């Protein structure tokens, strides 16, 4: 018995050692997802960290946040502030229906060689935390998200900003197209679905169960689309917040079915982080060989 426990512990430990660098998660945490009336605000924390929803790493720059109102118009953020570990902003939810608040990033990144020297395309280390191109200027006061310093004693790598800057004598060009959305949904009065209307591009969230009416004792169903079509086999991670108060993270690793639909059961009420990822070889940029898509949201699940 004792030996078996030791073995399990060793396995768990080895897992813990290999995963942290990959586990950095971008999250948006709204104060609520459901409001009565149209004179209220929602206040949102935005950060990148391993554990949900503990702001202990770096903030997300508020200037990347876009707001879409139920009528399709653009909303705005107010009272934005960037702290050491998380940024915060408010959104006035002044129209009835469901709002979308979040970030959308796309770009091409990768590496090439000039002679024997490796160069990087895009501002981020390939496969690094929150891979994607930063907005111009980068986040203020966000250590670790700024220009590359070569963490871990690695020498700094030379880089160009975009694919267009790759010199003509470059060899071994390896480029990946990245598209990531991180969007939360907030509803005033009755929910609406206009913000879910698919654009037909990349990985999209097409909920069957409205994300602002989730209840712990009811299964939720969310369809995922790739380029506008239901996508089977999309890998989705669902993580409840508050790991510190449990023994384990209790993440669910799920996949969409043949109809592109994900079925999720909620072990407890609370805030959940959901992240869907998909990789294929259909980049829209002809120089890229691979396309990496992601969709992230935070869901509020109430007790019955």
């Amino acid at each position, binding site marked *: 018995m004792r030996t078996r426990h030791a073995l399990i512990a060793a396995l768990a430990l080895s897992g813990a050692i290999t995963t942290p660098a990959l586990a950095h998660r971008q999250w948006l945490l709204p104060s*609520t997802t*459901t*409001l*009565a*009336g149209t*004179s*209220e605000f929602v206040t949102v924390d935005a950060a990148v960290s391993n554990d949900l929803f503990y702001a202990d790493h770096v903030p997300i720059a508020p200037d990347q946040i876009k707001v879409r109102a139920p009528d399709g118009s653009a909303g705005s953020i107010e009272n934005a502030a960037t702290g050491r570990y998380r940024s915060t902003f408010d959104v006035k939810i002044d129209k009835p229906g469901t709002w979308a608040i979040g970030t959308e990033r796309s770009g091409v990144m990768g590496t090439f060689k000039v002679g024997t020297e490796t160069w990087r395309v895009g501002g981020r280390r390939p496969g690094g935390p929150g891979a994607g191109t930063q907005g111009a200027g980068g986040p203020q006061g966000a250590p670790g998200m700024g220009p590359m310093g070569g963490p871990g004693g690695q020498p700094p790598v030379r880089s160009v900003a975009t694919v267009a800057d790759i010199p003509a004598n470059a060899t071994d060009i390896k480029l990946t197209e990245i598209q990531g959305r991180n969007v939360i949904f907030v509803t005033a*009065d*009755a*929910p609406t679905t206009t913000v879910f209307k698919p654009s037909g591009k990349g990985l999209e969230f097409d909920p069957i169960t409205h994300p602002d*009416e989730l*209840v712990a004792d009811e299964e939720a169903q969310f369809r995922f689309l790739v380029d506008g079509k239901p996508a089977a086999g999309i890998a989705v991670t669902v993580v409840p917040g508050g790991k510190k108060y449990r023994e384990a993270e209790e993440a669910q690793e799920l996949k969409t079915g043949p109809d592109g639909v994900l079925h999720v059961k909620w072990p407890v009420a609370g805030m959940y982080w959901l992240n869907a990822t998909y990789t294929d070889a259909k980049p829209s940029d002809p120089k890229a060989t691979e396309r990496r898509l992601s969709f992230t949201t935070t869901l509020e699940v*109430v007790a*019955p």
Partner: protein
Amino acid sequence: MTSKVLPSLPLLVAGTIATPAAAATISVTIPRVNVAEYHRPYVVGWLEPAAGGSARTIFVWYDLKKGGREPGTKWLADLRTWWRKGGRSLKLPADGLSGATRAPGTYQIALPANLPAGQYVLKVEAVRETGGRELVSVPITLPGRGAASGKTELGAVSVR
């Protein structure tokens, strides 16, 4: 599910036999809660057809008169089950539904006279500022009787 339904079943059957068709009345008890900071609860009652269908709000007691920066309607969403079942689509205040919050005590509310006979679940939900939230379900066959009781934010709830 069954544990909630079974205790009230004998009452329900007895009621079906004994009571002639007549306008039914709901009785709701708001218990006295001994706490330093007490605020009267928001309380709502609605009927759901047992076979499914849209919920019909019977009464909603909230801070009707509070306006300004934080209107009394702000906390209606805290009646979270009712809000999701249809409260969020109602335009309030609504005649015959909206009422001011009530002090602890027992209150009678008439059910609408035009309710079709049949099986329903009466739901009463209460939420109190700095306090808790409770939902009580009473399965009933109208015309008929039913009763259940809350534990914290609600006392006896009955239909007769």
